[in-house]
C-alpha cells in the first residue's frame, strides 16, 4: 500500500549545536493510529510541527501523499496543510468567536482567501460542522462563545476543527496533557472513533504510555531527537519504556498514574 507520509533523515537544528531532531525516519500507512511517546524535550512536538512546516526543518525530506512538503511553495503548502488536521495541547481556539466559527476555521484552507476573510462558508460546510459537533456531544454549545466552554469541551471543538478539514492525516500534539482523566477519555475516544470511521491516519504525541497502549495500533518511541522504538503495541516491553524515560521516570509514573 502507498504510504500517506514518509519522513527521511529529518533534522532540525535550533541555535548552534542544539538539535531538536536528529535524523528521524518514519512511514505512516493509511488508517494507522500511531502514538508517539517519549520524555518531554525529546522532540515530539518539533517532529509534528515539521510535518506541516509550522517549524521549518533544517534537513531531510517529508513526503505527504506523494508531494514534497519541504520544498512546496506557498500555494502547495496551503493545500497540503488543508489536508492535514492538527490538534493542540492548549486547544488553540479563537476564544472570542463562536464554537461553530472555530470549527469552520478548518474549512479556510479550501475556500478562496477573500471568501474566507468575509466568513462566507458554503452552507454544506456549516451543516457538516454542526453534525460534527453533534457527534462529539456539543450540540448545545454550537452558538456559545469558545471562552464559555470547559477544557474538555474546548478540546472537542479542536478535534472537530481538525475533522472539518476532511484530512487524510491528523497530527495531535499532546491533546490530553491539560485535561482531567474523564475529559481525556472523551477526547481520545472522539479522535479514535472518527479516525477509524473515516480512515484517517493519526499521529498522536502522548506522555501517557497507558493511553498510548490503549488506543494505538503502532507505537513510536522518541528520545533525543531519534526514533528508538517503532513497532506494534505488543512489542513495547517495560524495558523499552524504562529506557525511553531513563532519568525522567518520574514523568512517566506521574502522568501514567491516573
Amino acid at each position, binding site marked *: 500500500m502507498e504510504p500517506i507520509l514518509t519522513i527521511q533523515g529529518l533534522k532540525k537544528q535550533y541555535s548552534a549545536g542544539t538539535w531538536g531532531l536528529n535524523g528521524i525516519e518514519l512511514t505512516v500507512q493509511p488508517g494507522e493510529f500511531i502514538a508517539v511517546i517519549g520524555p518531554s524535550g525529546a522532540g515530539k512536538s518539533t517532529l509534528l510541527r515539521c510535518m506541516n512546516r509550522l517549524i521549518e526543518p533544517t534537513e531531510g525530506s517529508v513526503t505527504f501523499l506523494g508531494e514534497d512538503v519541504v520544498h512546496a511553495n506557498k500555494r502547495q503548502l496551503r493545500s497540503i496543510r488543508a489536508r492535514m488536521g492538527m490538534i493542540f495541547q492548549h486547544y488553540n481556539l479563537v476564544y472570542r468567536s463562536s464554537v461553530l*466559527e472555530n470549527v469552520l476555521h478548518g474549512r479556510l484552507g479550501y475556500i478562496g482567501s477573500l471568501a474566507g476573510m468575509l*466568513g462566507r462558508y458554503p*452552507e454544506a460546510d456549516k*451543516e457538516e460542522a454542526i453534525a460534527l459537533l453533534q457527534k462529539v456531544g456539543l450540540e448545545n454549545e454550537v*452558538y456559545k462563545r469558545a471562552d464559555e466552554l470547559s477544557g474538555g469541551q474546548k478540546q472537542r471543538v479542536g478535534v472537530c476543527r481538525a475533522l472539518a478539514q476532511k484530512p487524510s492525516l491528523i497530527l495531535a500534539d499532546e491533546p490530553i496533557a491539560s485535561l482531567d482523566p474523564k475529559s481525556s477519555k472523551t477526547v481520545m475516544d472522539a479522535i479514535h472513533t472518527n479516525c477509524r470511521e473515516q480512515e484517517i491516519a493519526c499521529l498522536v504525541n502522548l506522555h501517557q504510555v497507558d493511553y498510548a497502549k490503549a488506543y494505538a495500533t503502532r507505537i513510536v518511541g522518541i528520545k533525543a531527537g531519534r526514533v528508538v522504538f517503532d513497532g506494534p503495541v505488543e512489542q513495547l516491553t517495560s524495558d523499552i519504556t524504562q529506557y525511553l524515560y531513563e532519568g525522567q521516570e518520574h514523568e512517566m509514573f506521574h502522568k501514567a498514574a491516573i
Partner: protein
Amino acid sequence: MAVRKIPIAHKATQRQQRMLGISSLLLLGISLYCADLDMKQIAAGMERLPAIGRQLAQLSFTNGGELLRELVTSIVVAFLSVILGVVAALFLAFLVAANTTPNRLFGRVLNAVFVIIRTIPTTIWVLLAVASMGFGPMAGVLGLMFPTVSYLIRTFASQIEEAGGETIEAIRSVGGTWWHVIAKGLLPTLLTAFMATTAFRFEISVAESVILGMVGAGGIGSLLQGYISYYQFADLSLGILMVFFTMFLLEMGTVQIRKRMGRQN
C-alpha cells in the same frame, strides 16, 4: 430558491459589534455633515506640501548653537518643575491617599481639586503663568508644576493605597504615629516605585516643555514658533530633529530605568 443561511456567529458579541459599528458610523456621518471642511483649502495645502518639504530637507546648521542652548533651557525647565513637583507631591500624596489621609473628607476635597487641575491642559497653565509673571523660563517652571504635581499626586497616592495595608497596620500596632508610618514604613518601601514614576513624568514634562515656548515660556519652542512664522524651514528641520533625538534618547532612558526597577522588585 431561497435557502435559509445558517448563522455562525456568537449572538451577543455580534450584536455589540454591530451596535458599536453602526453608532460610530452614524456619529461620523453627522460630524462630516456638520463640519465645514474646506476642500479647496486642503487641495491648496497639498500643492504647497512638496515645496515646503523641499525646504525642510535643506537642513541648515547656522542656528545650531542657539537651538542647542534653548533645548537645554527646555530640559532644565522640565527638570526643575519635576524636582519642585516631587517635593510638593510627596507631601500632598499622603494627604490624598485613602489609607494615609488624616481626614477622609479633606482628602476627597483635595483630590477633586487636583482632578480639575489635571484636566486643564499644560499649555493653558503656562499661558496663565506667562500672563502673571511675564515671558521667560520661570513662568514655564511655574506653569509646568501644576500638571506635574497633580499627575505625581495621583500616581503616588494610588501606589500608597496599593502598598499601604500591612505596613501601616504593623507600625500602628506598635504605637507608631502618622509621621512614623510615612517616614519609616511607606517612604522606604515605595522609594523605587516613586522614582520610576518620577522618571516617567520627566519624559512627559520634557515633551510638554519643548512646546511651551510656542505660547511664550522660553525654551526651544519659541525658536521653532519663530522659524515657522518667518518660513525659515531649513532651520526648523534642524530644530525638529534635535527635539526628536532628545525625546528618543529620553524614552530609551526611562525604559531602561523601568526595566531595572522591575528587576529589583
